[in-house]
């Protein structure tokens, strides 16, 4: 068993060096394909984060009738918070609303017009965050007939359009990623097949002198795994070198994004390593198999 593993690893290593041209071609193809896959995966991740960010902006704003007692407001807030589709409810008092209005005017460099007012004309309101913008209708319908609610801001049309766009982009992104994944799969497996076919004479001789299937197969499988390992290491090196400008691009392109660089990096390493080594092994296994089954 140890003889066998040592033999397979030594043969895999020899295979890499003695067929340097094929190894370089296969590794280069692997790197390009993995960069393509990783690139689209990064864009897809950014896109999904951006869409989530947009969807979180959708909230239900319900103005509260003037003169409703505090106890009733607290009671209503508690009931809204219990709704299954709601993540949080923020009570904005009339004073808060006025203060906010002033801040906005100031931030825009406009004159504070509120000082001309005799009393505060703004309503107190609830700002209700939803689990998903698709729940807007349900929450809207429940609130609009509440006696304590003056009016619920109706942005149903807007919500509908946002949902259409985001779900389209999500689906399109997913489909493109799957198509890219399949292209990468076929190209890598085919490249490795070419490297194996180039050595069909060697396999033929091994069969004739009585090598068992395992002795023929495993050196090639290890070799495929090594090409995958080298290919994914180079890919990660390139991505690492490009990480800073790439991060800047992501920031500029998708604006403020809640992407954690740490998890992105870890997922990316798993994706690239897994794809590279996995496809290297799969390609070798399938290619050698055609010579073994007789």
């Amino acid at each position, binding site marked *: 068993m140890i*003889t*066998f593993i040592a*033999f397979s690893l030594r*043969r895999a290593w020899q295979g890499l060096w*003695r067929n340097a041209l094929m190894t370089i071609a296969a590794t280069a193809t692997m790197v390009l394909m993995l960069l393509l896959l990783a690139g689209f995966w990064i864009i897809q991740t950014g896109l999904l984060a951006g869409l989530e960010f947009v969807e979180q902006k959708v909230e239900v704003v319900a103005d509260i009738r003037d003169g409703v007692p505090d106890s009733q407001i607290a009671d209503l807030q508690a009931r809204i918070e219990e709704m299954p589709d709601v993540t949080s409810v923020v009570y904005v008092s009339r004073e808060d609303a006025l203060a906010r209005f002033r801040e906005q005017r100031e931030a825009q460099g406009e004159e504070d017009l509120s000082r001309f007012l005799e009393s505060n004309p703004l309503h107190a309101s609830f700002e209700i965050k939803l689990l998903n913008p698709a729940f807007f209708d349900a929450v809207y319908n429940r609130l609009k007939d509440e006696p304590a609610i003056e009016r619920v801001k109706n942005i149903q049309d807007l919500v509908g359009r946002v949902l259409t766009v985001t779900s389209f982009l999500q689906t399109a992104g997913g489909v493109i990623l799957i198509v890219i994944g399949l292209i990468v799969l076929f190209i890598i497996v085919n490249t490795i097949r070419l490297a194996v076919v180039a050595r069909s*004479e*060697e396999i*033929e*001789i*091994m*069969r*004739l*002198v*009585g*090598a*068992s*299937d395992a*002795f*023929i197969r495993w050196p090639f499988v290890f070799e495929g795994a090594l090409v995958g390992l080298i290919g994914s290491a180079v890919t990660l090196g390139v991505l690492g070198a490009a990480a800073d400008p790439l991060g800047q691009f992501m920031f500029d392109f998708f604006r403020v994004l809640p992407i954690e660089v740490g998890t992105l990096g870890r997922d990316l390493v798993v994706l690239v390593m897994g794809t590279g080594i996995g496809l290297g092994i799969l390609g070798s296994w399938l290619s050698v198999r055609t010579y073994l089954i*007789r």
Partner: protein
Amino acid sequence: MTLAPPGATPSLRERLFRATPERSREGQAVLLLHDVTKTYPNGKTALRDVDLSVPEGDFVFLVGPSGAGKSTLIKLLIRDELPTAGSVVLDGQNLVRLSRRHVPRVRRKVGIVFQDFKLLPRKSVWENVAFALEVTGTPGRRIRPAVDRVLALVGLTAQSRQLPSQLSGGEQQRTAIARALVHDPRIIIADEPTGNLDPLISWEIIQLLLRINELGVTVLMATHNADVVTALRKRVVALEEGRIIRDEVGGAYHRED
């Protein structure tokens, strides 16, 4: 020199390869074909009702025109193909009923030599021969003495570090013969081993095969080389259109009536 009763002295082959006595079964058939018919999926019948028995230590020429079925017969012997009907028994094992898993072990009992040598161009003579042992899981310490021994036998010790491209055709074929011998096979099957060589070198290769045969290894050689076959007066098996039309000891390449 003292005379010993027949069978008591170990054969040359045993002395050379240090085989255990019970492995040597002089006179018993190494190869036994019974009613073998091979029809390919395209409907072409390459062999019909072939019966052939090759005893241990025999030297057999397999002759016949191209397309007579020689190549198919050889493919059956190394179980590269299975017969449509009949049985192929090699060293007591019926190849027809052999499971795929056991095929490699049987192939190690057959040393095969081709017209085009089938050497790996990037490996030296020594490495090409050692390759046959490495890929069958032979421990490294057993490889070196075995390779050195067969290279000495074929006379290539001096060339062992050279690549096939640096060798003459005859030397390349001797490398292939050394590789076929390194597993200590029961039978050497040579498919047109002199087909790519000029007459003088061809004789060299034939002499080498004869010497190996004298050491006790059974040899089956398919050939078109009429001069060699007729001159040597060995056993000749002639195939034509898939049938054995002649099987005579001391025969010539062509029928002599």
